[in-house]
């Protein structure tokens, strides 16, 4: 920057000197030579700096600056020739020839240079650019015509002078047009340099025009002298341009300033101003001016039409884009509305800002109520705020989503399981704008999972029990077989008396019966489980059955006494005689088995509601409370390590319960460990059963 100001001062001093000399002493050849020299020096300076910049530039820039430098060189040559002529002939050359011949040659080079300058992209179509150029040119032509230039030339000294002047003016107009156009398309970074170049060239063109006008009208003098050295000021500015420090272009996303679009209209403004001046001075309008004004009007009309059509195109385009956007938004909305999941956007303060109908139905809350309310009544407050806080305040741009199952509450207070996810939606600066959340009701899924887990546990337990049962049954069967196999082996192999043989055969018979009972139990149970057992229902006297069962039981033991308390006149029950006998036999043999020290076993019957109730009470080992619940289950047998041997399959009570329940009765047990057990079961009376059947 300092370099620029030093150069500017260096240029200003000789320029000021030349100006002063010209203003003070007119009409002198010395002054003329001084002025020529000043012009030559500034043109030389422009040649030097622009040439240096051209040498450093590449591509279009090199061509542009090179041509501008060349134009400076042409000007130097012309000025030097003029000064030499003035000095040798001691006469000032004809003004038009001297000042414009050479400058007119220099200016086309400058124009070509300007056309090579790098241009910025502007929002302008080709026809608009053409219109703009035409508008500037016509404005200049109008102004020139209004100033009566053609007529002035008609009064020139010679036809040659007139043509040269006219040609010179035409070049000036073209230059000004190109300058305006270049300014309109200037790049931001290049603009200071460009303004200097354009300013310099404009000064040359304007001063040239003015000098031509003044020369043609013959009004020579002080002002003319200054105007005559216009190219000196112009080239001085051009020479300074390459020294202005270069700024890199700001980047691709330049904003779109409005002022370059206004440049062509400056010309129109100048036309308007000129027209006002003409009318004030009552000057007549020439044919050229009228033609130019008419052309300008036509161009303005065209420009206006183009603007309108462009505006309409833009409007249509934006409408199309808007329609597409709306269509897309509608589609997205319908996707969200009909999504099988609840969708909501939730503010950082846990307020629901949007929600879809699915979420509303999931939470039992109308959409109008849901939107705007906080999430706290539905999701645990501390949990949600903990989740929201877990997202970094400023994301690193990677996708982040929280996902988990939690218990949620509906508007009516009922609880349900929800699988939900939250994703923060961030602003451009990374801060969280709101959260996008989706909700899925997973209650049914969880329940079925829990149910299948429970089923699996049940199956595993059953499997374990079954394998224990197989192991136990095989042991029992083998124990029973010991006697059968052993005693029969003895009878076969050993000599013995007949009485002894009979005793052993009795043992074999007892063991076979034991085996047979166990097999019957297993088959019965299997049939009961499969639901294949059919009851043969008849009217029975339960007291008779009890008496028979006790009679049979008492044969098998000598240690126990039986106390029978039967309610007389008990109504008949509806039941299967064999199966009820099996129940009684089972309960009695259990009472015997589990009271190994002997004692009293009490059996009673009584009426209980619509049923006959039978109780079997022993004073044996009793059953621990923790086992009672499993007592009637499959394969369960209570085994006390410290009690005596109990033989059986463990199916007895399971079969008993099944039979009782098939009759429509119930079986219960009360027991105290060490004191004994009391089993009770009921069988519906025949009258009750009939009533139930009828009502069913």
């Amino acid at each position, binding site marked *: 920057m300092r370099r620029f100001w030093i150069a500017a001062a260096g240029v200003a001093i000789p320029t000021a000197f030349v100006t002063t000399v010209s203003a003070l002493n007119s009409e002198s050849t010395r002054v003329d030579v001084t002025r020529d020299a000043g012009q030559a020096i500034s043109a030389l300076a422009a040649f030097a700096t622009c040439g240096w910049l051209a040498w450093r530039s590449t591509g279009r820039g090199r061509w542009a600056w090179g041509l501008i430098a060349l134009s400076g060189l042409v000007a130097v040559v012309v000025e030097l020739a003029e000064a030499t002529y003035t000095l040798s002939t001691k006469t000032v050359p004809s003004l038009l020839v001297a000042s414009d011949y050479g400058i007119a040659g220099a200016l086309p080079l400058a124009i070509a240079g300007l056309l090579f300058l790098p241009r910025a992209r502007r929002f302008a179509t080709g026809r608009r650019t053409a219109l703009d150029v035409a508008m500037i040119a016509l404005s200049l032509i109008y102004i020139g015509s209004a100033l009566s230039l053609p007529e002035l030339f008609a009064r020139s000294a010679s036809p040659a002078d007139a043509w040269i002047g006219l040609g010179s003016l035409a070049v000036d107009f073209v230059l000004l047009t190109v300058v305006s156009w270049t300014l309109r398309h200037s790049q931001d970074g290049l603009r200071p340099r460009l303004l200097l170049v354009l300013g310099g060239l404009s000064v040359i063109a304007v001063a040239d025009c003015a000098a031509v006008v003044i020369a043609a009208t013959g009004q020579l003098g002080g002002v003319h002298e200054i105007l005559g050295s216009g190219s000196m000021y112009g080239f001085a500015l051009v020479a300074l341009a390459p020294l202005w420090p270069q700024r890199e272009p700001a980047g691709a996303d330049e904003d779109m300033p409005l002022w370059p679009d206004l440049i062509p209209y400056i010309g129109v403004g100048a036309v308007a101003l000129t027209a006002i001046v003409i009318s004030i001075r009552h000057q007549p309008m020439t044919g050229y001016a009228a033609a130019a004004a008419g052309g300008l009007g036509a161009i303005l009309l065209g420009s206006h039409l183009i603007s309108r059509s462009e505006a309409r195109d833009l409007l249509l385009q934006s409408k199309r884009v808007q329609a597409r956007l709306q269509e897309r938004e509608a589609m997205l909305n319908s996707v969200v509305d009909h999504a099988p999941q609840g969708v909501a956007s939730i503010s950082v303060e846990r307020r629901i800002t949007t929600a879809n109908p699915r979420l509303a139905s999931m939470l039992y809350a109308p959409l109008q109520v849901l939107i705007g309310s906080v999430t706290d009544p539905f999701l645990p407050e501390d949990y949600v705020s903990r989740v929201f806080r877990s997202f970094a305040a400023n994301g690193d741009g990677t996708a982040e989503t929280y996902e988990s199952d939690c218990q949620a509450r509906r508007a009516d207070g009922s609880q349900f399981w929800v699988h939900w996810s939250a994703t923060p939606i961030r602003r451009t600066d990374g801060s969280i704008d709101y959260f996008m959340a989706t909700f899925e009701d997973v209650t049914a899924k969880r329940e079925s999972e829990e149910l299948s887990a429970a089923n699996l546990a049940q199956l595993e337990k059953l499997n374990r029990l079954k394998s224990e049962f197989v*192991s136990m049954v*095989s*042991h*029992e*069967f*083998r*124990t029973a*077989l*010991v*006697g*059968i*196999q*052993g*005693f029969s*082996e*003895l009878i076969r*192999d*050993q000599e013995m008396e007949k009485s002894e043989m009979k005793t052993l055969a009795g*043992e074999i018979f*007892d*063991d076979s019966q034991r085996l047979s009972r166990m097999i019957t139990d297993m088959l019965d149970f299997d049939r009961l489980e499969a639901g294949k057992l059919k009851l043969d229902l008849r009217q029975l006297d339960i007291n008779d059955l009890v008496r028979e069962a006790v009679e049979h039981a008492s044969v098998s033991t000598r240690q126990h006494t039986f106390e029978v308390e039967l309610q007389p006149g008990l109504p008949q029950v509806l039941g299967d005689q064999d199966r009820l006998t099996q129940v009684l036999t089972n309960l009695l043999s259990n009472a015997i088995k589990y009271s190994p020290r002997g004692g009293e076993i009490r059996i009673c019957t009584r009426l209980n509601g619509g049923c006959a109730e039978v109780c079997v009470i022993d004073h044996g080992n009793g059953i621990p409370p923790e086992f009672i619940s499993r007592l009637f289950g499959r394969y369960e047998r209570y085994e*006390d*390590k*410290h*009690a*005596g*041997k109990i*033989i059986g399959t463990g199916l007895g009570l399971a079969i008993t319960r099944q039979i009782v329940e098939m009759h429509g009765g119930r079986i219960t047990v009360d027991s105290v460990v060490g004191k004994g057990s009391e089993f009770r079961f009921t069988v519906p009376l025949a009258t009750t059963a009939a009533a139930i059947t009828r009502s069913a």
Partner: protein
Amino acid sequence: MKRILVADDDPASAELLAYFLESKGFEVGTALDGNRALEMGTSGNFQLVILDVHMPMYDGVEILQFLRKRHMLHPIKVIALTGDLSQEVHDALADGGIDSFLTKPVDLGLLHDEVSRLMVA
């Protein structure tokens, strides 16, 4: 006199074994539960025990371990008898140092062979 202890909680089995062994000329004592079996087994009156593995109070494996501890110098012979053929029981008995292993229902001829073999050794 060769004395054998039959420990079995099933009276029929115990009776059978006693009857058979007595007929073969052995003197036989019977124990119907684990407690009694332990008492009689440690008395020193028996050279051999026929042990049912499943018994109330103490089971066969426990009795075997106890007997092995008490008779370090003059080990008593033990034949295990069980209807349970599972590997765990088999392993537990083998670890306890069982002399012979027979399954129920027992082949009396095989039992006699085993008893004779162990009594001579």
